């Protein structure tokens, strides 16, 4: 039966192929040149030469610049890589244990990472991809006709903001990094060394400042999630405040940070909203409502879901309210919350149960005492893919703007002016307010503690420890308490530049 089928089909195919071959052969009798036929362009990919020429293409290229934050190489995006692994896991908010091999998060948490640790390469690659996407867009946008020039300015401003933002994350992880602001070929790129911090700060702050005018205060419903003026001011506040601390210690940045943060606060009620309850902050139904700049996630199998909740919590049994059907990355207690963080919460803090789960029902139906972050893990959501959580991730929250502003006021001697900002956060968390007559030093202690618990699990705490330069003492003390056999120095505030990049571009390494 099979043979008969083959016979007929091969005859049909054969007549067609042979006639084509013959025609080609006859063409050659006349020695027809086929040079034009050699210019074959890809059929399955749009080429860069032909793209970036219309308003719609620029708009899609801009979405591409944003996309680096969510699905760059399917490794969880910036929320997992920059905020969880490179930041929160580095701090003593986590206590990673290794039951199933040497995972990167374990090396990071125990300061055993090296220049070959994969995670460092992911950070470097993802951020430079975002930068290069923006560079490509910015190099082509001027030649593109737009119906409304304001749209071109908005797109350009968003791209410039995102490029600077990616540099800022690189600087916080690696310190000096090569500054590239246009598309380059490899030969040029390997000649660009790691640029000093002062130059990088100058570049990124001036870029974001220049982008403010083109951004909108508020976007319509279909464009929620784009960079707003408030986001630019808040980001500048964070960048300047970071630059005023360790290691740059540029004191002239304090006033600049204060101005930008104050601009955001002035917009409260109009452009930004203070959530009435802490619980409202971490619900996918409240996406784009309270945070100033957030990474967008939607579920539905579109590769736009969040990895984070499944990254930091185990498989829960079906009897547990957090059961989600699809399970987690880990079946056992590997990325647990440290006791030190739990102990930092004051009694009655409403935020503790919303942030950390201190016992759960395992997949075997038995209770388990391991402790995990559940801040972004919503109850009652049943997933078909564990990496498809719909909840956005906040990069800057309004609460951070308030507390940064309070921190600056206190550092400038205006402690009593700073206190109401702190108390606003505390009272919403069900805690008693601090006295307006508190000393500046006590205020600093209270504020630092408040920042740790308010932003636990959000990738804020580690960078605070660095800019305050308290990281060395905090981590060494925590390691000693747990009998861990390591101590750190300020060198450990930065990660090693990925070995692959040193090999290919000859960069110098961090100490």
């Amino acid at each position: 039966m099979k043979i008969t089928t083959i016979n007929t089909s091969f005859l049909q195919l054969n007549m067609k192929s042979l006639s084509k071959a013959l025609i080609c052969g006859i063409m050659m009798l006349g020695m027809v040149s086929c040079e034009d036929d050699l210019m074959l362009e890809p059929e399955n990919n749009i080429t860069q030469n032909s793209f970036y020429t219309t308003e719609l293409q620029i708009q899609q290229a801009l979405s591409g610049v944003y996309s680096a934050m969510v699905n760059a190489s399917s490794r969880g995006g910036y929320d997992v890589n920059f905020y969880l692994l490179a930041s929160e896991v580095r701090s003593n908010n986590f206590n990673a244990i290794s039951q199933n091999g040497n995972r990167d998060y374990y090396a990071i948490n125990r300061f055993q990472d090296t220049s070959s640790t994969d995670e460092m390469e992911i950070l470097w690659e993802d951020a430079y991809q975002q930068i290069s996407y923006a560079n490509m867009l910015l190099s082509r946008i001027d030649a593109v006709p737009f119906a409304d020039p304001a749209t071109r300015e908005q797109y350009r401003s968003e791209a410039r903001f995102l490029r600077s933002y990616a540099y800022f994350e690189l600087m916080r992880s690696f310190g000096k990094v090569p500054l590239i602001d246009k598309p380059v070929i490899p030969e040029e790129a390997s000649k660009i060394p790691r640029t000093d911090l002062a130059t990088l700060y100058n570049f990124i702050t001036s870029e974001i400042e220049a982008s403010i005018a083109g951004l909108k205060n508020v976007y319509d419903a279909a464009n929620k999630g784009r960079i707003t003026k408030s986001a630019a001011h808040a980001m500048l506040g964070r960048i300047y405040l970071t630059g005023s601390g360790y290691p740059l210690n540029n004191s002239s940045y304090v006033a600049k940070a204060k101005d930008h943060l104050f601009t955001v606060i002035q917009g409260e009620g109009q452009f930004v909203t203070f959530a009435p309850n802490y619980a409202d902050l971490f619900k996918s139904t409240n996406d784009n409502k309270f945070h100033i700049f957030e990474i967008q996630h939607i579920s539905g199998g579109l590769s736009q879901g969040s990895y984070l909740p499944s990254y930091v919590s185990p498989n829960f049994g079906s009897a547990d309210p957090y059961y989600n059907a699809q399970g987690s990355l880990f079946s056992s207690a590997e990325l647990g919350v440290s006791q030190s963080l739990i102990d930092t919460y004051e009694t009655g803090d409403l935020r503790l149960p919303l942030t950390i789960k201190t016992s759960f029902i395992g997949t075997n139906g038995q209770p388990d005492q391991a402790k995990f972050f559940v801040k972004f893990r919503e109850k009652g959501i049943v997933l078909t893919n564990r990496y498809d959580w719909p909840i956005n991730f906040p990069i800057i929250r309004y609460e951070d703007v308030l507390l940064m502003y309070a921190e600056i006021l206190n550092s400038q001697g205006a402690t009593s002016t700073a206190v109401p900002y702190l108390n606003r956060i505390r009272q919403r968390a069900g805690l008693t307010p601090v006295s307006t007559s508190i000393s500046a030093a006590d205020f600093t202690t209270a504020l630092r503690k408040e920042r740790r618990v308010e932003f636990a699990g959000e990738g804020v705490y580690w960078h605070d420890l660095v800019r305050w330069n308290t990281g060395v003492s905090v981590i060494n003390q925590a390691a000693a308490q747990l009998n861990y056999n390591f101590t750190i120095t300020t060198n450990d505030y930065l990660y090693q530049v990925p070995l692959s990049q040193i090999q290919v571009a000859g960069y110098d390494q961090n100490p």
Partner: protein
Amino acid sequence: MKKSIITLGILLNTTGLVFAQEEQTTGKVKDQDTIQPSPSNKTKDIEEVVIIAYGTQKKGEVTGSVGRVNAESFKDRPIARVDQALTGQIAGVKTRATSGKPGEPLEIRVRGTASISASNSPLYVVDGMVADDMANVSPDDVQSIEVLKDAASTAMYGSRGSNGIVIVTTKKGVSGKPSFSFSQYYGVQTIEKKLDIMTSSEWIDYATESINKRWVALAPGNSASDSYAVRANYFNLANTTNYNLANVNYMVDPRWGTDQVAYIDWQDAFYRPASIQNYQLSVRGGSKDVKYAISAAYFDQEGLALNTGFNRYNLSAVVDINISDKWKAGIALRPSYSQSYGAAVDGKDNEAHKMLSMVPVAELSAGLYTNFWKNDRYRWASSSQSSIGVLENTTNNTNEFRLLSSLYMSYDILPNLNFKISGGATNNFNLNNSYTPTFNLITNIPGQVSIASRRTVNYNRYLGEALLNYKKTFGSHSVAALAGYSAENYRTTSQYNRNKGFPNDDLKTFNFTQSASVLNSEYTASEWMLVSMFGRVNYDYKKKYMLFASIRRDGSSRFGWNNLWGTFAAFGSAWKIDEEEFLKDKTWLSNLKLRYSWGENGNNNIGDYRAFGTLSGGNYSFGGNLSNGLIPNTIANPNLTWEKTQSSDFGFELGLFNRIDFTADYYIKKTNDLLLQQPIPYATGYNIMWKNVGSVQNTGLELDLSTKNLTGAFKWNTSANIAFNNNKVLQLGSDNAPIYTGFSNTTNIIKVGEELNSFYLYEAIGVLSTSDLTNTGIAKTVGAIAGDVKYKDFNGDGKITEDDRHIIGSPTPDYYWGFTNTFSYKGFDLSVFFQGQKGGYSYALLGRAIDRPGMGTTTNVMGNWANRWRSDADPGDGKTPRLDGTTGSLLDTRWLYDATYIQLKNVTLGYNFEQELVNKLKISNLRVYVSLENVWRKDHYYGGYNPESVQSDGTDYGAYPNAKVYMMGLNFNF
């Protein structure tokens, strides 16, 4: 039948191997129709004709280096593909069985590895037409295989010649009565070797040590002797006899060592004795003006792994017609249909890898089907499902219909001038259907997580060429010239759909798709084109002095728009010293010849469209809605161009007493503008780019010797070959910066002055003892403990860091060889074929993957872990560290093996029945034989199945094991 030498040259494209007997007095040539060369005492009158690019040459006139394999040498071997016939037969042609999977091609390398990122595979030519591979040709139809090795011989194929050319010539029809022939063989295959993984008792010992260590470290007062119940109470388990509640990180299974659990040797269950069989029927014949050869073949090979295998039907029809004195035409059609089936066995994370790492203990109720259907997972095992169950229940069929067709017309414009036009086409239609049912029926219902996929690949290739041939003899001077033009177009389209979730598992095809969720739905198309002009002139004086020159110009769509065209030239010369007057009458000297050739050719064997910068999807969402985005994903290189290889070849040939033939070739092969997919700084936004960088040199010596040791009633022939190749990187990029390659770009290095893809690893030199820890003279990794791997402090800085990685050998062997002896007496014949290689290294990534206790005790590991370090007093084999050490993840030399091996590849014993006897049965040439393939092998390879099964960087991620084959065969004509 009279035929001029010119037309002979042209017709040989289709008439194949001919032993032309030249009658010197008349200058006439006649075909000798026997397939086999008849040994003659007057070799000077009988000359073998060798197939070369776009034609043929008499062996004596050849100026280049051409190796040859006759059908005789492989007719009794169980070869599934023509590639396998080349193993160990020609000096300088290296084959590797990178996978033992049925139907898989061999990797063929001619004169070493010259390219880094572009393909190193040779170009294939079947009966004069460029083909993609040899899969369409049934080994039984093959008359001979020639391999063009030097650049002068291959330069006629210009941009594709640099890796050598393999020319397959098939058996053709001959005038006369139809001759039917039938051949068949049947054999049984068994696994060549099992991997040494821990037995169940070794694993239990290993798991017990690991679990008890964790238990003791968990809390003060814990002791390794604490019972299951004590530990169950510690974890507040509801039940102390329900082992499915156990916390396996801290509790051992009290049933270990008893008959309450099943102990399994997974390899014994996974691999089986498997059959191999082949049947071929052919008829050849013709009249004065029409000749035909028709054959049908069926080949079937079961895989060693359960439920895997390959079968193929081949048909072949070749017809040549003399239309008139001047017009000739011919057509060849070769359809084939093949099916390969079974789950993916070899490679990372496929079934063999999973099977080897499965814990060798299971619940009695589940046995081989642990964690499968409704069987519980064994609590102390990983979540891997029974590989036996997966193999038996996965549907994965690839059906391929291939058609290779060609036709030609030839016209003698003048007696010495011939024009030939030919067209060829390859049309392949490949369909893969796979269905993975829902294996876990404890938490799922049938069909719930089943995955069905369907992929179709259409590949069409069209080739047209026109050749003008001229040949003339003026007294002692002979001239042959060729001019040609060809155009080729290649197009591949594919469609792929993969869906998940079905109403049930009753229908194992891509169906019920309305209820499924779409995982993949995609279409791709890719095309490339090559346009070429070429010419060649051969000149000889009195058959003593030979000269030749050729040029070819190629335009390829694959390269950058600034560099579409390339020109490739070659010349060669030969001096047949034995034709000189003073030696001509020395009968003891049958051949003495010197050759020299030089040529340049190219390599365009990279993917399509590599010069373009392209975009891919990069979406985001705004306001809860998807926003389509596009991101640059490859970087443009408008200057991308050929990889160019220049090589010189010095040849020496000596024939004595018509019984000894010796050939030596020395070559220097330098490849410039290496095509390399090079890592580039991420700061560009990309991590790799196709570039032309650097150069690599291969130099080598090839020796071939064949002797007729005994020629009486008892005959003994020997043929031996050996090839030495040295490989060296001369230059890389503009700054000679080394390039890191291999697994995760961390196992190999490409560095100037070193061999290509040298291994660049931490060197493990033992295991740290407790006293080593305090010895400041011994360098250690950060945080090392006693029982960790001890590394060589290569840079002597007292620390073990990545700077201590250094070059330790390369995948390139020092030499490889083949050695065949054939004996015959009366009707009996025996052939014994050895082959092997010396030097070179293999890196066993599979061995490493299942050799890391850091991954926990829920998997099985290599058998050397039974001899692990346990304490200073019990240090094991001195190489295997402790199971809970800190050095698990470094890529070090513990998995690097010397790739030297010697293999008894084949032994065949045959008997040809006497003609009178078989004539009564109305048949002739009745032959029966037994043949053993892959009989015996000696090697140093521990971490994988087969030392040959490595990638070009020398790494092996678990290829399909090779089979030993025991077979019997039968041939006859009627």
